[in-house]
């Protein structure tokens, strides 16, 4: 019950007209930016991060929670109305959602997405409240070798589980790890700084995220700009009939049940649970013939799974300091920019701040629902913004944000170089997420690895801590050999049962 008391205290801290206004502003601009085509939730958070630089951490977090949920919902609006998912996690929502919109049921698709997100977000955040203390207790017992193993697992997971090509995932990860090395290391030596004094502190993660996401995207689109913008489906005020409710509520709950655990695992993500939810709904639906033509279950389930997984990601992010998706990675960077280090000690050191953040998540989620149902037609208009203005605006705010981090023009040149790297990665189909995770976790993995070896006096056996690290290394091996198992065990079995 302690948590609930803490949570109530968090609500009490947030419930102040000024703070509620900040939450509202956060939700509005988060949605407005998230709706813009080509901008996924992670990019929304990265672009809007600088707005909070001048604020106190409490206020910043309140606004941040609003931006987080606003960006997520904005992304699904775009994928439903334009059939263009901003992030891989909303790919599935786009399949049925866009078909529904084309069949004249855009209002219902947006409504089931909005209400489903609310249901999943609320349940997910409640589970976060209940789970956090246990995960923290577990995390406190972990030693350096265990952390090192967990980070290795996160590296392997982002490169192997997601994406089609492991080589390309690994390249992206290594680029990120290399960027993470830049700066003065723990023993005081300059590494990869090229003798430039401003690089001694390393390259700011916000600059990396904005460069790769925003500048890279702007350059990539500039090279391939479609001369005629895609058709936007007009939409009225979202609403659902009785039948839509009947068909939606179970998929919402099932989607939540898939999404949260996957998000909470250090190797999770939203891609797998959204696909699983889609397949489940297709199987269980009384209208399987509608799938592929716009079935409401196919929007309700995956969208709930997506949001629940986002709430789940906050568990390892807050308790272990391990981000498992791009949005969490950028949020972790935001925490660090306020001088706050997520991890097992966070709940002790910054307890009130954590509970304020969680209370803000509840409030942001509610505001989102109240605001987005009536405002959906206005958001849909944003999709028609002329593309030159859209990308000029993205570059404008990206530059402003990156400059604001350290107030040095050098960062703008770094931003451009990273933008060109982001361009090349898009051109060659290299995934972006492993790079961001590498930049953030690389230095910390090195720290934990060196600490482990310090305890063992340099013996490599020091990396094998206790039962936790054994388990994690087993999981890593399983992830690595899974394709082989599938090729030599699962497929022959299936072929046999089919024959």
């Amino acid at each position, binding site marked *: 019950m302690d948590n609930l008391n803490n949570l109530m205290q968090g609500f009490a801290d947030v419930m102040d007209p000024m703070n509620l206004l900040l939450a509202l502003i956060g939700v509005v601009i988060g949605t407005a930016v998230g709706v813009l085509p080509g901008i996924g939730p992670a990019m929304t958070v990265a672009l809007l991060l600088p707005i909070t630089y001048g604020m106190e951490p409490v206020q910043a977090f309140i606004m941040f929670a609003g931006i987080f949920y606003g960006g997520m919902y904005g992304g699904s609006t775009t994928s439903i109305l*334009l059939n263009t998912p901003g992030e891989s996690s909303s790919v599935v929502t786009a399949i049925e959602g866009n078909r529904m919109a084309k069949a004249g049921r855009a209002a219902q698709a947006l409504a089931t997405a909005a209400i489903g997100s609310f249901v999943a977000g609320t349940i997910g955040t409640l589970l976060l409240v209940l789970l956090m203390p246990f995960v923290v207790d577990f995390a406190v017992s972990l030693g350096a070798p265990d952390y090192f193993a967990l980070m290795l697992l996160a590296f392997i997971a982002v490169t192997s589980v997601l994406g089609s090509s492991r080589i390309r995932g690994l390249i992206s990860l290594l680029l990120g790890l290399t960027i993470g090395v830049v700066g003065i290391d723990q023993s005081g030596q300059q*590494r990869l700084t090229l003798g430039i004094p401003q690089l001694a502190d390393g390259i700011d993660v916000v600059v990396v995220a904005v460069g790769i996401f925003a500048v890279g995207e702007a350059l990539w689109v500039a090279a*391939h700009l479609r001369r005629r913008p895609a058709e936007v489906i007009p939409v009225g005020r979202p609403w659902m009939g009785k039948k839509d409710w009947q068909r939606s509520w179970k998929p919402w709950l099932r989607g939540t049940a898939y999404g949260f655990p996957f998000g909470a695992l250090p190797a999770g993500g939203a891609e797998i649970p959204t696909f699983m939810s889609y397949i489940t709904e297709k199987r269980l639906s009384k209208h399987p013939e509608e799938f592929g033509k716009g079935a409401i279950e196919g929007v309700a389930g995956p969208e709930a799974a997506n949001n629940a997984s986002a709430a789940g990601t906050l568990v390892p992010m807050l308790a272990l300091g391990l981000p498992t998706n791009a949005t969490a990675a950028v949020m972790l960077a935001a925490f660090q920019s306020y001088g706050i280090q997520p991890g097992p000690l966070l709940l002790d050191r910054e307890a009130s701040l954590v509970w304020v953040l969680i209370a803000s998540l509840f409030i942001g989620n509610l505001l989102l629902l109240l605001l987005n149902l009536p405002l959906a037609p206005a958001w849909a208009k944003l999709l028609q913004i002329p593309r030159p203005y859209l990308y000029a605006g993205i570059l404008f705010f990206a530059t402003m944000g990156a400059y604001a981090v350290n107030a040095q023009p050098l960062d703008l040149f770094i931003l451009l170089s990273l933008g060109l790297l982001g361009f090349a990665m898009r051109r060659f189909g290299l995934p972006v997420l492993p790079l961001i995770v590498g930049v953030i976790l690389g230095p910390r993995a090195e720290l934990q690895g060196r600490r482990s070896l310090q305890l063992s006096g340099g013996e490599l056996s020091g990396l094998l801590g206790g039962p936790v690290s054994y388990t994690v290394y087993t999981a890593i091996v399983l992830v690595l050999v899974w394709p082989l198992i599938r090729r030599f065990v699962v497929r022959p079995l299936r072929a046999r049962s089919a024959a």
Partner: protein
Amino acid sequence: MSSEVKDGLKDERTVEDSRPSREGGDRAQYGMCAFLALLGTAVIVDALGIERVTNGTDPVGPRAVPLLLGALLLLLAVLYAVDVARGGRGEPEAGEDVDLSQGSDWRTVLLLIAVFVANALLIERLGWVISGGLLFWGTAFALGNRHYIRNLLISATLSLTTFYAFAIGLGVNLPAGVLQGIL
């Protein structure tokens, strides 16, 4: 089942994706291999130049990780090249505003880079209001918008609003430049 869904998606995305250069494999990927190899070499050279500080409290020292990363970069450059030689290629990223049926429009990209560099060079001297406004105006121009006067008004409004809202209102670091004292 899941592969069914994925395949369906892939089909939709690659419908317009049929550049003629694709037939002979995507040779440009070798450029990326070369970049990785160069980067790997640079990381190793840099690491070798770091003073060797290992002692009882830090048996690993600052050199081990960059040396390992450099070696891995070289290894991956080779593996990537092998993959490319065997016909492997990454799917260029699709998107609502992206039209992959045409080749890359390098003129627009170079113009954008020029505008971006101009802003980076001018931001401290001219201040955010002027350089940021130029950035917006120049980007819109590079992307093919020809409403010069209207864009000038939009740029000025945007950079003035952001300056007052963020620099003065929220305390974000943005330089006033030559307009110091006027704004």
